[in-house]
């Protein structure tokens, strides 16, 4: 080929490529926008640092410590792992950009066999768990026949834990197989969820229903085709707000379920060992897999006897169970702060990006600020505070492209909670299943048949590449 032709062709392509909008990627700089935070030291709310009330900082530190506890089958200070589990440490999965966040760049689940967390003789690494992919839990939307055919008339949706304790010290009598992941993958019957970050969760928990409903009412006649509804707690009818489908009412519920489902640790909210959904339809877990910790149930419980300490707060903090302290840690975690001047594109892109973000309709669901939390007995920073979460905490129809065919509470298989965007600048994976690290792909994935976001994505697509870039830069500044 004539070299001049090649040169001209390249010249014709390169300017377009240079101008095309791209995700600037994970923002550098201060972790969570908070000077002083490190990858292993997340910051609590300001009033917690100020010890309001006295002793609250000790509870945060105690919760942070327990969040990093390595759980084992038995014979340690933290027993009760399994018999089925996804990981052995809260902070392993909630790690990015610091403890309490979402999945890290290097997936610790992939290293579980090499690290001895899982016995490689009895467990194999599922193909969807990779060294540098998203940290995941897996669910089978439907039960399967013995031959592996999905039974679409029998919805499942429960978590299929990746690993078993079989082969580990203390689990000699427990022989369990992993779920049939290969079979389920062949049947397109696996969906994934990635960890939701916990920063600012105490503020979200402390939003009164009336505040959320007033925000919804303000959007009730938008011209974007967006409606939304709330996932109401099945026990008392109030608005649930945690988890990818807003299925959990409170942080304590979130913690209790995480201990039970993700680590296999029974607790005062979920006091029984959890079989897989298909095991629970048959005979449950085998007797040889019960009470492996040797302490009886629940494996995580209130500590009636604690070590006496001259520090009253330190002594008090020992009394609560792990799930209570997990919830306290999450409740007291500071929210991420935006980087309005140091984010990608600088201050001008932040201002322009925010204006465009609102203009095209993103803010109809990703509400920048909910004002304000109810009075808090816990600590002043949770009282009457603005919540800059960029979420309405409603569930929305998100179309067939994102639908996972898993129903949780009032949420159907196509409905998801508006993911809070605070801290999105330092997130690695996006969407409920972590299918992409590219923010632009994530935005466009909001559009598919049956999605409430179709009109907003069409508006976004109507922007110039420069304007789209400003929105990407803005979101990466959060």
């Amino acid at each position: 080929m004539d070299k001049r032709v090649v040169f001209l062709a390249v010249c014709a392509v390169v300017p377009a490529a240079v101008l095309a909008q791209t995700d600037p990627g994970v923002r550098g700089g201060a972790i969570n926008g908070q000077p002083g935070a490190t990858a292993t030291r997340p910051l609590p709310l300001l009033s917690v640092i100020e010890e309001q009330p006295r002793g609250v900082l000790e509870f945060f530190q105690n919760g942070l410590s327990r969040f990093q506890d390595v759980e084992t089958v038995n014979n340690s200070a933290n027993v009760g792992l399994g018999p089925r589990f996804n990981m052995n440490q809260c902070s392993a999965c909630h790690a990015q950009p610091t403890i309490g966040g979402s999945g890290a760049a290097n997936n610790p689940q992939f290293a579980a066999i090499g690290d001895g967390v899982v016995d490689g003789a009895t467990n194999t690494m599922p193909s969807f768990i990779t060294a540098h992919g998203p940290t995941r839990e897996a669910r089978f939307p439907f039960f399967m026949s013995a031959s592996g055919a999905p039974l679409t008339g029998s919805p499942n949706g429960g978590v299929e834990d990746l690993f078993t304790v079989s082969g580990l010290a203390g689990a000699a009598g427990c022989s369990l197989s992993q779920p049939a992941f290969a079979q389920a993958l062949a049947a397109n019957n696996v969906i994934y969820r990635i960890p939701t970050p916990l920063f600012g969760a105490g503020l979200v928990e402390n939003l009164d229903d009336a505040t959320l409903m007033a925000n919804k009412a303000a959007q009730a006649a938008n011209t974007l085709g967006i409606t939304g509804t709330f996932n109401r707690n099945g026990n008392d009818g109030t608005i649930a707000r945690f988890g990818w489908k807003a299925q959990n009412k409170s942080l304590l519920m979130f913690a209790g379920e995480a201990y039970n489902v993700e680590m296999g640790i029974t607790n005062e909210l979920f006091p029984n060992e959890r079989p897989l959904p298909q095991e629970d339809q048959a005979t449950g877990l085998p007797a040889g897999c019960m009470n492996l910790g040797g302490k009886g149930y629940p494996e995580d419980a209130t500590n009636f006897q604690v070590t006496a300490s001259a520090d009253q707060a330190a002594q008090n903090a020992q009394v609560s169970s792990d799930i209570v302290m997990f919830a306290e840690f999450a409740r007291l975690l500071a929210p991420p702060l935006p980087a309005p001047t140091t984010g990608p594109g600088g201050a001008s892109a932040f201002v322009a990006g925010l204006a465009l973000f609102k203009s095209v309709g993103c803010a109809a669901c990703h509400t920048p600020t909910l004002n304000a939390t109810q009075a808090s007995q816990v600590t002043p920073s949770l009282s009457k505070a603005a919540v800059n979460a960029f979420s309405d905490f409603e569930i929305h129809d998100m179309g067939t492209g994102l639908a996972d065919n898993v129903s949780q509470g009032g949420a159907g298989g196509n409905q998801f909670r508006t993911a809070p965007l605070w801290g999105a600048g330092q997130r690695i994976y996006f969407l409920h299943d972590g299918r992409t690290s590219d923010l632009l792909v994530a935005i466009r994935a909001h559009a598919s048949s049956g999605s409430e976001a179709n009109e907003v994505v069409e508006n976004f697509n109507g922007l110039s590449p420069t304007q789209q870039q400003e929105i990407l830069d803005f979101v990466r500044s959060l």
Partner: protein
Amino acid sequence: MGRCLASVALAAVALLMGAAGADEVPRNTLIVKGAWPSASDPTTPLPEGGELAAGSYQNAYFGLTLRFSSRWQPGLAGPPPSDSGAYVLAQIVPAAGPAAARPGHLLISAQDMFFTATATRSALALINYTSEHLDRSVYRIEEAPRETRLAGRSFVRFAYYAPAAAMHWQVLATEIRCHVVEFVLVSAEGARMAELLQAIDRMPQTGAAADGGVAAAGEVPLCIANYAGPDTLLEHEEPRFTESRFNSIPVRIVIDGAGRVKHIHFLRAFPDQAHAITDALRRWRFKPHLLDGRSVEVETGLVFGRGAAPVAALAPAASR
């Protein structure tokens, strides 16, 4: 005979191939639906049942046909109706071509005024609500909501602009069958409103939309808000739900000339809820509604579950 056997063999192969396909969960398909729309019969037109094809959008429920040129094409299907009675009826987007020649995109939506969360009861009130709730730090009003006439019927027109995005929203809204139907054009040029007005002005209207909203007697049911009340309801029983939930269940019903419920449309209900409500509504009996001395069909709304009002507390209030 040989050809017959060959056909049978081919059919068997096709069947087996189909069976193989059934061993996989269909991709991009929603199966586990949660609360979802449904209707008691497959033939009565529903608001969400319009047909969007190349060149036109037709909606038998509203009696509308909107034709569009080859510069446009059908967009993605919208979500199911909401539990507050909001519909995305159609999205029409630019056909592929130079960006400068693109006409913008059009959203056709509807709000059921029986279930609206805005407490508004007319197109003008609803669009005023929209206008009042626009973030003025983001949007500038170009045309305040005002009434106009097009194609022989009343519309509300409204326009606003987002300077940062250089986008114009031009809204035309009209009342049909106790819904507000909205046409929302988003474009880079404010002058596109004229194009939208022309398209709407040429829009054929039948049934519910015909003659400025006054359909021929009997052609479509008369819609009346809060019709089910002590003055109209002769017999009724409450649904017997099998599970406590906390969702709102908006239901549109059509009552025939003899006072029986002849059609039920659930905007959103879990299947067990729809079943229980259907069982109950089959037993309801209304006084026949008389218009000019003749009994006519009536269409009204009921809310069960969250936000339901006791039937005895409802007072009928006629509206068009």
